[in-house]
């Protein structure tokens, strides 16, 4: 129903058509190889990949050790463990590493730039990389990035200019949010009971003119 909101419209089809032409030679053999595959997605075959990330001996495939540890520390600050588990328990670093490994070089670079900005600011202000800061120092740095204020005014004020660091923060936060809330722990956080059907939809049961 929300088709139009959900359609990802940023990319032009024409550009794709041009890009597809060289791929056609491969497509000729692609039709042959299709006969050997089942033509089902892993999900349609019933493959359950939910345990992959918790495998013992896990190692990052894209991030280096410092980047991985930094991501763990950051994710724990963004979505901490409270009365429910947080991003660290949900292994969001492992999922992000997996997805990044398959991303385009541009997207990979953008992520590393964001992480690098965090360490750069940390070095500039506290003379140490982000993951080695005290909890209080980490908080001061993140707070400045999360609620940017420039020239003495809050970002919401007229004339205030957004801190460029805010964009890096939001990029990292966005990755961590989507990784957390798409995990099994994240689904539970949202209260999901594991059942797929809760119908029928009841809708508004208020008298006319009173819907509060």
């Amino acid at each position, binding site marked *: 129903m929300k088709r139009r909101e959900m359609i990802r419209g940023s990319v032009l089809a024409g550009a794709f058509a041009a890009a597809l032409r060289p791929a056609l030679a491969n497509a000729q053999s692609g039709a042959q190889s299709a006969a050997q595959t089942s033509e089902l997605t892993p999900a349609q075959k019933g493959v359950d990949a939910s345990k992959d990330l918790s495998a013992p001996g896990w190692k990052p495939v894209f991030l280096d050790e410092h980047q991985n540890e930094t991501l763990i520390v950051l994710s724990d*600050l963004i979505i901490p463990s409270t009365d429910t588990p947080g991003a660290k328990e949900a292994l969001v670093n492992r999922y992000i590493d997996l997805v990044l490994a398959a991303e385009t070089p541009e997207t990979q670079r953008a992520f590393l730039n964001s992480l690098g900005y965090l360490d750069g600011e940390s070095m500039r202000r506290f003379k140490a990389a982000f993951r080695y800061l005290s909890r209080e120092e980490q908080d001061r740095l993140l707070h400045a990035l999360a609620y940017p204020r420039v020239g003495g005014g809050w970002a919401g004020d007229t004339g205030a200019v957004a801190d460029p660091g805010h964009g890096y923060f939001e990029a990292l936060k966005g990755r961590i949010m989507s990784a957390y809330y798409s995990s099994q722990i994240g689904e539970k956080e949202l209260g999901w009971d594991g059942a797929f059907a809760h119908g029928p939809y009841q809708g508004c049961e208020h008298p006319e003119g009173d819907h509060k």
Partner: protein
Amino acid sequence: MAGMAQDPLQQTYDAVVVGSGATGGWAAKQLAEAGLKVALLEAGRAVSPKEFTEHMPAYKLKYRDHSPEVVRTRPVQKQCYACMEYNYEWFVNDLENPYSTPPGRPFTWQRLRILGGRSLVWGRQSYRMSDNDFKAASRDGYGDDWPISYADLAPYYDIVERYVGISGATEGNEMLPDGQFLPPMKMSCGEILLRERVKAKFGHTVTIGRTAILTQNHNGRLQCHYCGPCERGCSTFSYFSSPFTTVKDALASGNCTLITNAVVSHVEMDTEPNKARGVTYVDRLTRQVKEVRGKAVILCAQALESTRILLNSSTREYPNGLANSSGALGHYLMDHVVGAGASGRMPDFKTLPNANEPARPNGIYIPRFRNTPSNAKHSRFIRGYGYQGGADADFNFKAEGYGASMKKAVKDGVYGISLGAFGESLARWDNYIEIDRDLKDAWGIPALRISMTHGDNEAALMEDAGASAAEMLEAAGAQDIQVRASVEMPGMAIHELGTARMGNDPKQSVLNAFNQAHDVKNLFVMDGASFVSSACQNPTLSMMALTVRACAHLIDRFHKNEI
């Protein structure tokens, strides 16, 4: 063609139907149940309920819907929200199925090759057209009237709705005729408030979406269990898709032979003039070239694919495409214009969303209110637009900041409301498709070059639609209203129409009022290609009704030995 294999049964069918989606399924059912021997050709494989994934949580997917395989093989298809890591194999592989577009005229073409076609993943919104649409040209002077009126199609809308099962509410709206409805789905508090305020302030109708989803058990299928993601399949067959309804009936009649993996390249002509003999196809897996013969050939391959087959069927007599003495074949391509709407927050409503609430796979609909018989003509554009939308509490994934307070704010939620417009796309000669002589698909079949752009009228529609949506949300008390008034690239509505239009004048149109080619009487195009104008309603219901009407005509002529 040398070395061509005959079809395995060495049979001449009464009818060869190309395509097994919403319209092809109906053609196969109607013809087979009337006693005709039917061959139903589908370019993709068969589909099984075992591959439905609507109940699989995202965390079981390796990439949780960010699969690099989808990006690599479906760069165009994934522009549709319904193409995802769960089900991407249902969509065509873009590397095997290319098309081209001229510089500055992008078009996104989303399609499936599998039994049932796009009926497996469609949006399911089902609306009738009215004489305001069929006779629009007479009313505002632009374009051409349809060769049929609402009265001609109404009985066939009835047949289709009764069989498919459309849930909806009757409204008595002059632009949106009521139909044979199952009980409507319920509206949320925000939607009811919008309905009340918009009626009071503007006189416009807000109604629950009319959708091909069952709200009670119907024709052997179970009512919806509100799990949400219909586009991944439905284990209770509660939304309408052809493999488990019309195609199933056609096969059960004993008169229909299903041939999957049959990629049709062109129509074969008989030695007798102006008579089709059947179709030639390439076996998708073995690449063998085969012919299926039929007394009638019926194209239901999707608007652009059906016309591509005709363009690839040129003969000495029809050098510019089969059944194209008019020259209109390929022209008047349409796709509803999208890109305008508004969204906001309704701060007066309780939020606290719950992941265990039923997920209603439907929203609200606002029928066209511009340039209607009871309203003055708009000064800046002709025709109009309708809206789809909805209002409900949801998790606040855009909560500010970080840490425990942000984590709580996500769960506290936000009550959102949004409207998105679908506008009429005017039929224009210079929006067209043709064969790209330098481009072939993986089966060696010449591919399409699609040349389309929305015009000034579409842009004016979207500008007005953005402003009107904002006014309506404001009337409902929404805050933080964001307005959109852009024009997205053609194809984004996935409502491709036209390119083999109907008409009474064989010099101006490809098909007659019964979807029958003027030039070749045993050749029919029974899909969206036949549309004369696009209206602004989601077109699948009308396409199915046109198919059933055309089949009634074909069966009649068949029994009179005229086909």
